[in-house]
């Protein structure tokens, strides 16, 4: 067999412009709320204004009598609609405690925003008017807000569980070894950090519409979701409709960042009520409602300890975290902190390692995956602690990292937490970033400002990250008790007209899969991307898929597309050999044309072969008609992208204001299929990570009220708060997938918070050891300065 299927025609690696853009730029793209659905009823949710309260009674009479209202339901009215509770797919330990969670709360509300009744009516405005008329009588209970306080069980949120503790998950492969490491250490660093809650804030609010088919008892569920395939299975199980009767379509989806990686009450209610009322039912979230009704990210108290020898080389890393579940489990709430469980030693070799996570319920919006999911938390802890270690040992932050890097020759590296890091070459990446940013010059500038007595201090913050993504090898997910696999499906089909259809199980919502998957196929087939159509996000067209999250789409889904294309080409080669009366080994393939070596006149274009495969008039014996291949790719491992991020800040000692002057990111995600899109992913991740460091926090008062639920109060960074990013790259291919690629969607959000925070601490290091948490608001910075001066 020749290597025709392995050839490349140079499309991969080009900064090709996105084919998604013209529709999005001209207003032609359709998001869920844009869909015209005649005869649809709208729903609105009556939500608890209390974080922890008994529901005494609900009076719906006035709402029912309101103009345009069709029905009002409370939990007991709909109990027969549910075949099961809202699904939680991640039972992280056998004894993990989960409260029953249905679309409407009954008996008790457990966070501000917990839905207690649903109003069904003819228009959103009429529904909104009627929602205000539902009279709910509550008995307010003390709210459980603080994580450490929650663990005391002084107030138990879910009586039936008997405790607020959800689970304890531990990884401690060498208990004696780590004890000994800390006993024998020359330096020990002990730190406590807070991962504040964040509001994911995808620009498109959630929206759902369910349309019953005019025949057959089928339903089409349109949703602003990242997970049409998972949603189909989960809604079928929860609403008790056969999976084959539900078609899920994710139209254009306006960002997700994990917040649309979930199965929400509103999706289940629209489906159940469309079944009940036999008409389309729809809902679109309001932004302020979404701040409470859509999952939030992070929410941890982190304790990390490093043991090091006299030179600062790590002997042991121990992390003990408390993770905020919120009021209930959503789809993967419990598992999110564990996606960081294996990474609290970062990019550094340590002989011993231990990790413990305690999940705890609070009276707040449930948490779940938000860009990075577990890895930003781990990276923050180790990268800030490494700076503390550098200080303790008395070496430069860059030097402490170099001394501890997993050596290049150790890859594939068996980590002390039990992972195999696929590939890495950390030292040169860091050197490149330091050179590019002008590290030595910046240090000199910093000294100069200090010598001049400036009150505006320069700070340089390093963050070296490595993360695990490309979710995920199914067997590894099994070992973590996750309820599904991590494969991805692809079909490549060359039609009789020679157009190519690519069907993928990924579900893009801004990532440009229609462009990049076409590039992968065009590269291999040597044809124009204009002849390739990529179909996705409709479970009738793409029946199999595991969707888009966890920086998985290219390394898992793109690899599936690559493999399916190879298979199509192998089949085409068999047909070409037959028709050209040549041996397969004597064929060459270039620019979409097979030719026989040494006989340049004997050629056959792929288009002709596709037509022959379709008519099947003259195929080799035993070969099936049609030119099509489907594959399901299960990756053998995660991918482990890495990189050096450097933040340069100016901190005004008098006002506490932090200005981000420069941001340098040298990422290594292996070869870049489309560098334009890769860089765009990095930019977006950086903005979110910088937002976490400097601006964003879902602030709750002691009664469990979210104080900044609106975009007027929750500080999303605007263009004015951010600098132009400076990017570089190194290329270390992953050996675990045929494209050699690693994930990049979350890298920016993972690496940047500690870079910015280390820069702030660095800027003020001559004043004293600043203790500061995120977001580093001017008030916090100013107070931290006063605290060390006091």
């Amino acid at each position: 067999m020749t290597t025709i299927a392995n050839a490349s025609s140079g499309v991969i690696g080009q900064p090709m412009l996105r084919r998604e853009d013209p529709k999005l730029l001209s207003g032609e793209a359709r998001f869920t709320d844009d869909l015209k659905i005649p005869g649809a009823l709208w729903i609105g949710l009556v939500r608890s204004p209390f974080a922890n309260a008994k529901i005494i009674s609900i009076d719906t009479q006035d709402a029912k009598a309101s103009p345009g209202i069709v029905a009002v339901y409370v939990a007991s009215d709909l109990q027969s609609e549910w075949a099961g509770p809202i699904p939680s797919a991640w039972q992280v330990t056998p004894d993990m405690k989960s409260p029953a969670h249905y679309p409407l709360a009954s008996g008790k509300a457990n966070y501000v925003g917990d839905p207690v009744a649903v109003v069904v009516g003819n228009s959103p405005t009429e529904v909104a008017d009627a929602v205000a008329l539902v009279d709910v009588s509550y008995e307010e209970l003390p709210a459980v807000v603080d994580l450490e306080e929650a663990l005391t069980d002084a107030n138990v949120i879910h009586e039936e569980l008997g405790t607020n503790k959800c689970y304890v998950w531990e990884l401690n492969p060498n208990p004696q070894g780590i004890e000994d490491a800390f006993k024998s250490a020359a330096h020990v660093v002990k730190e406590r950090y807070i991962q504040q809650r964040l509001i994911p804030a995808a620009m498109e609010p959630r929206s759902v519409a369910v349309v019953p088919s005019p025949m057959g008892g089928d339903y089409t569920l349109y949703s602003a979701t990242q997970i049409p395939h998972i949603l189909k299975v989960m809604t079928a199980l929860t609403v008790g409709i056969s999976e084959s009767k539900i078609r899920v379509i994710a139209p254009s989806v306006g960002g997700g960042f994990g917040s649309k990686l979930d199965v929400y009450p509103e999706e289940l209610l629209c489906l159940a009520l469309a079944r009940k009322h036999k008409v389309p039912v729809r809902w679109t979230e309001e932004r302020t409602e979404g701040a409470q009704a859509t999952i939030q990210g992070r929410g941890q108290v982190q304790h990390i300890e490093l043991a090091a020898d006299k030179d600062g080389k790590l002997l042991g890393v121990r992390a003990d975290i408390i993770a905020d579940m919120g009021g209930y489990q959503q789809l993967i709430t419990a598992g999110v902190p564990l996606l960081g469980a294996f990474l609290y030693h970062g990019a550094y070799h340590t002989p011993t390692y231990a990790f413990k996570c305690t999940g705890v319920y609070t009276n707040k919006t449930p948490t779940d995956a938000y860009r990075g999911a577990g890895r930003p938390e781990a990276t923050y802890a180790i990268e800030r602690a490494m700076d503390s270690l550098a200080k303790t040992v008395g070496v430069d932050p860059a030097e402490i990292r170099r001394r501890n890097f997993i050596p290049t020759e150790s890859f594939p590296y068996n980590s002390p937490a039990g992972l195999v890091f696929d590939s890495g070459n950390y030292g040169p990446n860091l050197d490149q970033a330091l050179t590019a940013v002008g590290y030595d010059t910046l240090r000199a500038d910093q000294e100069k400002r200090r010598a001049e007595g400036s009150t505006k201090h320069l700070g340089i913050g390093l963050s070296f990250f490595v993360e695990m993504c490309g979710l995920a090898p199914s067997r590894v997910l099994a070992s973590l008790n996750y309820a599904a696999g991590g494969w991805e499906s692809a079909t490549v089909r060359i039609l009789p007209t020679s157009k190519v259809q690519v069907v993928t199980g990924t579900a893009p919502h801004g990532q440009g899969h229609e462009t990049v998957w076409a590039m992968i196929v065009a590269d291999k087939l040597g044809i124009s991307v204009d002849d390739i159509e990529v179909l996705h996000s409709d479970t009738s067209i793409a029946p199999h898929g595991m969707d888009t999250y966890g920086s998985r789409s290219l390394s898992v889904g793109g690899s599936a597309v690559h493999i399916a294309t190879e298979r199509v080409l192998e089949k085409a080669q068999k047909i070409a050999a037959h028709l050209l009366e040549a041996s397969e080994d004597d064929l060459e393939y270039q620019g979409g044309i097979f030719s026989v070596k040494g006989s340049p006149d004997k050629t056959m274009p792929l288009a002709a072969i596709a037509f022959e495969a379709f008519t099947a008039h003259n195929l080799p014996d035993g070969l099936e008609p049609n030119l099509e291949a489907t594959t399901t790719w299960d990756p053998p491992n995660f991918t482990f992208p890495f990189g050096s991020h450097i933040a340069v800040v100016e901190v005004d000692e008098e006002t506490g204001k932090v200005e981000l002057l420069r941001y340098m990111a040298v990422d290594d995600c292996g070869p870049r299929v489309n560098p334009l899109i890769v860089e765009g992913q990095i930019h977006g991740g950086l903005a979110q990570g910088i937002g976490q460091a400097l601006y964003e926090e879902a602030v709750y008062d002691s009664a469990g009220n979210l104080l900044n639920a609106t975009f007027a109060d929750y500080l999303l960074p605007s263009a004015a708060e951010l600098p132009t990013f400076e990017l570089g790259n190194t290329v270390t291919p992953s050996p675990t997938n045929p494209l050699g690629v690693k994930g990049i969607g979350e890298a920016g959000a993972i690496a940047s918070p500690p870079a910015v925070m280390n820069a702030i601490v660095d800027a003020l290091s001559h004043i004293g050891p600043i203790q500061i948490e995120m977001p580093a608001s001017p008030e916090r910075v100013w107070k931290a300065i006063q605290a060390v001066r006091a």
Partner: protein
Amino acid sequence: MKVSMTVNGKSVSRDVEPRTLLVHFIREDLALTGTNVGCDTSSCGACTVLINGESVKSCTTLAVQADGADVMTIEGMASEDGTLHPIQKAFQENHGLQCGFCTPGMVMASYSLIKENDHLDEKAVREGLEGNLCRCTGYHNIVKSVLAAASEMGA
């Protein structure tokens, strides 16, 4: 109440409830769904349109306030033959959009920013677009797009 206005060069006239917001009038009555609603506090700018050539957040404008006005939405930016406006083209060429939800508002805000400023530099673009939020791009390529469009349009 009856409102009449010109939208993307066409005269329209409808009966609306007095409380109807311009954005709902555009999206629901005129079925021009390119203009998006991203928040409820006039913070995100996804609903930005032009009223008499100036960018306005259509979620904080009543439809009746636009009575008699000349309104332009994202659907009116490209030529009749579908050729993209230089701003739209610059956004594609500089990868100034990802999910595309903020994009129509971003393009309309950029239009008036470019029209109202002779010499735009990076800082002016960043400050000029402060009222339009994007969660995908980190603004890096949006700023590049606007500067490229400004240069193309001779600003």
